């Protein structure tokens, strides 16, 4: 009997049920979309903020201030290997070793030569503007020249230059070919860049000066990495680049506060609006309730009937709403960040809860109303 009434009530009142379902779907899909996006926004923004470049440096125990480097002021090849292992983590976007040396160009003028890894350099410093091309593999004796250095030393793309370490003794020098120019508006403009391997051969030294890394997850991740790295290589020091890391933390906090509050307000308002609408649908059914009472239905069975009807609407509506919502979230994710949005089980639970909240509005209030309905008055059309 109960099942039959429930089934009939859903099937016969297609229009009403459809409307209620639509309201639940709209409410839950917005909540699902926004919550999915916002639960991801700090990770995504953190990745975006990597455009600002390295936010972590690994330094030798005693960095050289001036004068010739000592073993203390360098990171050895053995340490580099260990650190490389520790940096092999998903939160590290990219990292580069850097080896600096003042070299003599074509036996006359001086400039700073930097040995590094080009493939990762453009990931650690995405703001570099490169004209020409990067040296190909890690063995290639290609040279990337800062725009200021090129202008002041009169160097051009395609030209071959002799680089000598330390003195102007040409016998110690090796030939490099310029493959491109680099511009940053900062110190890179004055320098020459080459692959680490040929630079090591030229300088006859395998150690490096510093490691720069671009890390997502803010100060917290940097602190974790610091502990891991200092455990495997106790002689080095790991520090955040405050210019980047500090500003990043502040900005991320603000953005997540903004999205959290906006999400919360939208959630509340959508829920209230949807609840109000559903409620207006219920008042309409007084007659039906009155009739059922006249025919001998107890309050409890009427409440059960309405509650199960609302439950079915809530469940179906939230499932469809969740589906639409995450599809919407992916669209937002791709258009704003160019990547997909990770699914979060918390969002699913929230959406289901919201669905029920919308479809079963103020249940106690509703029960009170049902029990208060006087069949005779209601059926006569009085309120």
């Amino acid at each position, binding site marked *: 009997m109960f099942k039959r009434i429930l089934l009939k009530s859903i099937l016969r009142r297609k229009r009403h049920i459809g409307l209620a379902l639509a309201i639940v779907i709209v409410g839950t899909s917005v909540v699902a979309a926004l919550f999915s996006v916002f639960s991801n926004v700090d990770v995504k923004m953190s990745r975006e903020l990597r*455009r*600002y470049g390295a936010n972590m440096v690994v330094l030798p125990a005693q960095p050289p201030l001036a004068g010739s480097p000592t073993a203390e002021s360098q990171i050895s090849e053995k340490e580099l290997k260990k650190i490389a292992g520790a940096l092999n983590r998903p939160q590290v976007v990219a990292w580069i070793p850097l080896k600096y040396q003042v070299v003599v160009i074509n036996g006359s003028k001086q400039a700073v030569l930097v040995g590094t890894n080009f493939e990762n350099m453009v990931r650690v410093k995405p703001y570099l*503007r490169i004209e020409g091309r990067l040296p190909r593999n890690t063995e290639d004796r290609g040279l990337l020249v800062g725009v200021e250095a090129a202008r002041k030393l009169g160097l051009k793309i395609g030209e071959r230059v002799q680089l000598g370490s330390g003195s102007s003794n040409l016998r110690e020098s090796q030939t490099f070919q310029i493959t491109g120019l680099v511009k940053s508006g900062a110190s890179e403009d004055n320098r020459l860049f080459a692959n680490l391997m040929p630079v090591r051969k030229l300088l006859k030294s395998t150690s490096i000066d510093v490691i720069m890394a671009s890390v997502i997850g803010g100060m917290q991740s940097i602190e974790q990495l610091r502990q891991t790295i200092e455990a495997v290589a106790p002689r080095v020091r790991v520090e955040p680049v405050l210019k980047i890391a*500090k500003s990043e933390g502040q900005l991320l906090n603000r953005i997540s506060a903004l999205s959290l*509050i906006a999400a919360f307000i939208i959630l509340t308002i959508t829920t209230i609006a949807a609840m109000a609408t559903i409620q*207006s649908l219920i008042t309409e059914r007084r007659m039906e309730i009155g009739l059922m009472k006249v025919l001998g239905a107890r309050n409890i069975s009427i409440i059960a009937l309405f509650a199960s009807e609302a439950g079915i609407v809530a469940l179906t509506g939230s499932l469809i709403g969740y589906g639409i919502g995450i599809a919407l979230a992916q669209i937002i994710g791709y258009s*704003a960040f160019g990547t997909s949005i990770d699914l979060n089980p918390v969002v699913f639970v929230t959406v289901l809860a919201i669905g029920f909240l919308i479809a079963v509005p103020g249940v106690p209030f509703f029960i009170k109303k049902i029990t208060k309905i006087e069949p005779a008055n209601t059926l006569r059309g009085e309120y």
Partner: protein
Amino acid sequence: MFLRILRRSLTINKKRKALTISVVALGTGVIAALLSIALVIGDRLEQELRTYGANLEVVPAVDSLRIEINGVDYSNTARGAYLDERQLPKIKTIFWRHNIVGFAPFLPVMGSLKDNGRTISLVGTWFEKPMPAEDEPDFRTGVKIVYPYWQVEGRWASDDSSVSEAMIGAKLARVLNLANNDHFTTEVNGRFQRFRIVGIIRSGGVEENQAFVQLAVIQKLMNLPHKIKKIQISALTIPENKKARKDPAIMTPEEYEKWYCAPYISAIAYQIMEVISNSRAKPILQVAESEGVILSKIKLILLLIAIASAGASILAVASGMTAIVMERRSEIGLLKAIGASNRQVEALFLAEAGMIGVFGGLIGYGLGLFLAQIIGKSSFNITAPFNPAVALITIILAVIITLLGSLFPLRSVAALEPVVVLHGQE
């Protein structure tokens, strides 16, 4: 007759009307809140991004190549070209002077310590020098303004050259085993100078290897009065578009004027070169380039939030209106039974919806302005002011939404058979 029915239908059943108005108000309130925030957040975000430090560097137009590693300059500073310190106040007279947050001059030299002969890198600069500008009488500038991310243990040095104070980088302090209140004497250009350390700088950058002292002291030691090697500037800018990247020399007069009067980084750099003679101003891409991208990302997120909530509000209001029309089927049936045409019934409902829209929009704007304060205060510490344009947009939007929401259910009005509806059958 029409007006009387309309008035009656608005005055009776107030509860239901109030419900619809509140649904409209809630929906448009979110839109109004986000609009109000979006209007003011741009400026605030730019200021926020200035914590990344300088985005412009000015150097002498013709100079020898700098040979510098880890903040230590190996090139000979005593030679080469310089900028003139006396021209610095002119930076605050350019067209976009209000967008100049701060600037600092630099004159780096190498010194050797008297005690152990160690070479150290000394940088002469301004810390927080008062520089009254025409319309900003309390403008102060120096490294404290340009590098807000420096963590200083102790205090910032004074700009008063009679006290010769120094701030030294944390790494330099460690290597030299110096702490706050210690003194060190260094030889520069054959002259000795004693400094008292008042602050230790942590930045994770090259600054940690340098010692910062008053510009005037270095100028005196080097015998280079009013000379500086570079200026770093922190300026509020807007992201450049393709047109702004064009060389000003090949712009048409209109393009040039448009570009000159927009706070693009290139336009500000250009205006600075106009006031500082023999200089070259270049954007620091790490900061300048990233800023534009990040700014547009954040604005895009805001826009998406606004669109999503606008969509939700429209649908919520539309479904609310549908519910109302459905509820009033018997009323419609009665109207039709006593001779009202479909047209008249529709007009009645649309007029009612329009009024609900106006009221809902008004309340919605009030609510939205309130919500905007909450969102703004707790995230970026901004207040959204009353904006008549936003108020108007909100009300118009509310009316459009309500009318759109009513149109859909009204389409079924024509199909309603009075007899069936009045009889109570579906």
